[in-house]
């Protein structure tokens, strides 16, 4: 289907089903029950899942295929957000021109940075991209927000004000980002028994875009172009000797992943019309690296899994507090209960980053392929265990 082989088609269908039914899947617990805090099916969080999914898919096209580790990808996300908000300010709250411009601007921006950074490889490339991103952050934070030429609105963040031109804005249109009149915040609530499910217009826009982007990523992975990118990763020297210049391929990959990041930034602004410089900081770039590695760099589904995993636990873990822990461990004797809470306490709530850091280190050390490799190993182990038993039987037979 759509030029994909059977395996990829089923992968795409699984992703499509998961994203479209996410409001059900992420809300398994009835509202009002003690477990309701683990529900992740509210619009804000679901939007973040798919947006960061897009961001990580794009990053994976660069890092997973070519092996170039960029530490400055958040710059493109930030640029995308700024351009989207500018479209809201100048034209109207319609998201289509905003997203289009954010992709275009991010593409130009990444072309410029990529052209310079890709002259070097390895650690130098990482540091160059890091330097560029930090420079863009510094520029957006202070320089480009002087009264004469206020492009980013500095610390406050860029937002839409009532006296902005908005030339296509009509009174009949909603006063927030919308798609031809359909507000991004409009949510349909479906109550079934004790459960309640939210169907949010913004989420579904992001979800559809993510599926398209995921499809494009599959096509890139399976194309001759994708093969070239893999060749860059495995042995650039040999590629040179065969008479191929790797630079155009890596630059194309860099720009494509920059466009993905810009798209994610544009969508972020479309969900909440605000853009701040902190989105460009290098810790934000580090986050997408974490997502991609955690899920599995170089695999198709890995980055999406990683993005979902990190965003889910970031929201859920940070909500758990000591009272909830006491409830969980209440079946234990008092002393042990307090001890368990004491042990777990540093890792929850505000300590979520500690858990993330440890988890990330463990993955890099023991499971370089991320969650996907973990799943594969587990699957293999289960299959081999079954097989091992039959093997043992067949081996015994000749002895008799």
């Amino acid at each position, binding site marked *: 289907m759509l030029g994909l082989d059977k395996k990829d088609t089923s992968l795409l269908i699984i992703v499509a089903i998961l994203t479209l039914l996410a409001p059900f899947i992420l809300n398994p617990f009835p509202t009002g029950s003690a477990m309701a805090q683990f529900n992740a099916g509210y619009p804000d969080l679901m939007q973040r899942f798919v947006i960061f999914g897009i961001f990580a898919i794009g990053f994976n096209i660069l890092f997973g295929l070519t*092996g170039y*580790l960029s530490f400055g990808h958040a710059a493109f996300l930030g640029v995308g957000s700024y351009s989207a908000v500018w479209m809201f300010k100048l034209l109207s709250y319609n998201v289509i021109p905003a997203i289009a411009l954010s992709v275009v601007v991010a593409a130009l921006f990444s072309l410029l940075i990529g052209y*310079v950074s890709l*002259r*070097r*490889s*390895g*650690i*130098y490339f*990482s*540091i*160059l991209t*890091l*330097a*560029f991103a*930090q*420079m863009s952050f*510094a*520029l957006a*934070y*202070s*320089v*480009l927000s*002087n009264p004469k030429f206020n492009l980013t609105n500095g610390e406050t963040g860029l937002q839409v004000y009532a006296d902005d031109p908005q030339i296509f804005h009509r009174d009949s249109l909603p006063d927030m980002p919308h798609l031809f009149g359909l507000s991004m915040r409009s949510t349909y609530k479906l109550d079934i028994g004790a459960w309640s499910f939210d169907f949010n217009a913004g989420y579904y826009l992001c979800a559809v875009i993510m599926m398209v982007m995921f499809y494009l990523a599959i096509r890139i992975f399976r194309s001759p172009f994708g093969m070239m990118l893999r060749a860059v990763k495995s042995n650039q020297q040999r590629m040179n000797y065969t008479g191929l210049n790797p630079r155009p391929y890596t630059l194309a990959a860099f720009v494509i992943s920059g466009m993905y990041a810009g798209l994610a930034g544009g969508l972020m602004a479309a969900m909440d019309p605000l853009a701040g410089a902190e989105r460009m900081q*290098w*810790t934000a770039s*580090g986050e997408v*690296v974490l997502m991609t*590695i955690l899920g599995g760099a170089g695999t198709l589904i890995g980055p999406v899994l990683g993005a979902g995993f990190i965003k889910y636990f970031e929201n859920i873990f940070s909500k758990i507090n000591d009272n909830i822990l006491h409830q969980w461990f209440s079946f234990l004797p008092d002393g042990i209960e307090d001890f368990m809470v004491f042990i777990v306490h*540093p890792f929850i709530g505000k*300590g979520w*980053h*500690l858990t*993330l*850091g*440890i988890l*990330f*280190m463990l993955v*890099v*050390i023991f499971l*370089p392929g991320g969650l996907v490799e973990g799943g594969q190993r587990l699957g293999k182990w289960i299959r081999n265990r079954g097989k091992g038993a039959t093997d043992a039987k067949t081996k015994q037979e000749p002895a008799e």
Partner: protein
Amino acid sequence: MDAIILQILNGLDKGSAYALIALGLTLIFGTLGVVNFAHGALFMIGAFCAVTVQRLLNLSFQTVDETQKDFLGNPLKVDTPYVEAWFGPEVGATIIDWSVPLAVVFAIPIMLAVGYAMERGLIKHFYKRPHADQILVTFGLAIVLQEIIKYFFGANPIQTPEPSALKGSLDIGLMLGFDPNAIIYPIWRLVYFAFAAVIIGGVFAFLQFTTFGMVVRAGMADRETVGLLGINIDKRFTIMFGIAAGVAGLAGVMYGPLNPPNYHMGMDFLVLSFVVVVVGGMGSLPGAVAAGFLLGVLESFASTTWATTTIPGINQIIIYLVAIIILLTRPRGLMGRKGVMEE
């Protein structure tokens, strides 16, 4: 002229910090070939050694002083630090006052131990892995160390004041023959610069004039041959990792009075230090030191009102701009050696 000298002096303290961190980074990179993203965290741990020493010295017990009354007429509870009780009030107060310099003594063994543990426990397993993996695992370690410090010390900056004898400023202009008040410079910044100079000198002397240093230098040039000569080069490189961690830690201890330590100070310095290392040339120790001071001074020149009015915001981006230009025109950096990290 005096304005130029003032800007150079202003750049020296930040330059010293950059140079010290970059020196450690280069030591690790030159010996072990590992890109250590956790080096900023070591700088931060050093700064928190100073905080810990300060807190330990301020540990006190309460006594009820019947002669003093609070505003309600109850006897006043007085906190007396243990050091004051043990050594007498005056000596005790001086010890507390000098807690930051004292922390240097305390920080050396701790930082060496941290560095040694880090190399043996984690980095050792990453020699054969690609550089990207080394970056990633040390990045994760940096997050973990940072969060541990945050858990114990909180997220707010903690004041670690310099000794009161070294507070205030010197009128350097007067000494050099300029008008009075032309060049006023805080004493602690001079102390920091002198301290950095001593440490850098110490490291270079250690590498240049001891047998151990000679072996390490030989190992940096050709690890395999040194190994074939029957020298256990790995053990020596581990010790060098400890020393590099110590250098970063000491830089952090003494930086406390200039900028109150907080848990993410390491990350802020790390990015700049990497830029410094790249500008100086990967694997070149003199290059790292020179680039550290150079960029520190450049940053201070870019912060003058003249520079910021000509090109707004130049002080924010100058270092990155210089790094980009250097990397593109002289890919090996200012003093990079041939054959080191050409990739």
